[in-house]
């Protein structure tokens, strides 16, 4: 059997859903951040699948930019997490409610 890009799209949708559910369910900030990475990866996978299906290299180029943005996001996000943990050790997402008033 041949693997058409549809298989990749379905797989990407499943990984994205797992990441989204994990982001909603887990309370540890680090795990939530990893779930964001999962969702980003699912999106890049679907972009590359579309790039091959439509014979358009722009999909792969955009994935390149997504990787750059993901790297920047991880650097800033982990710095924020470290800053939060300096204030509140062992904080979960529920403990960070400064804006709640």
């Amino acid at each position: 059997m041949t693997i058409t890009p549809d298989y990749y799209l379905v797989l990407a949708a499943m990984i994205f859903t797992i990441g989204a559910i994990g982001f909603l369910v887990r309370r540890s900030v680090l795990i939530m951040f990893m779930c964001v990475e999962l969702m980003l990866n699912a999106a890049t996978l679907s972009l590359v699948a579309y790039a091959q299906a439509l014979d358009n290299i722009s999909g792969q180029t955009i994935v390149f930019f997504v990787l750059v943005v993901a790297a920047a996001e991880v650097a800033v996000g982990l710095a924020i997490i470290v800053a939060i943990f300096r204030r509140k050790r062992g904080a979960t997402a529920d403990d960070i409610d400064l804006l709640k008033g």
Partner: protein
Amino acid sequence: MEAFVFFVFAVVALAGALGVVLVRNPVHAALSLVATLISVAVFFLLLEAQLLAGVQVIVYASAIVVLFLFVIMLLGVDESISLDDPRPYQRPLALGFGFLLLAEVLFLTGQTWVTGLPSLGSGLGPEAGGNVETVARSIFGDYLWPFEITAILLVIAVVGAVVLARQTFAGSPVVDEKQPEESPGGST
């Protein structure tokens, strides 16, 4: 052969993704994330995106995950955080919305009207000049301006990360590096 590789690594990718969500220990979650990232790199190879497969392994599976592990090491593994949610309605709600999202995305991928482009299933002709050259021509040709902006973005991110990691909040003392991390009251 391609189908065999695809299904094997699809199982690995899904297992890794589930591992990130279900595992209690953050270190194990990071390692599960590596499994998924490497599988995605294999999918890139199958989709004839060789450059992206290499970049995926180098940037994602190495650099980003190592950064995660460094932060986990810095903060310490906290096993006391329970997986149970204080709000009982949150988890079923999240599962419901998750499967709604999955159904929605699967529905949209089969549609033509979303992008105006033909639906999938067609093959791809051989690339002229190899994948790296094609992507490079695209990046340094059509996408030169976005490429320059990413350079600025990376500089801003690095500066921001340094500033955030060293930030002292109003009314809080500077965390002394010589002080042991476990000292109580150091972060009040």
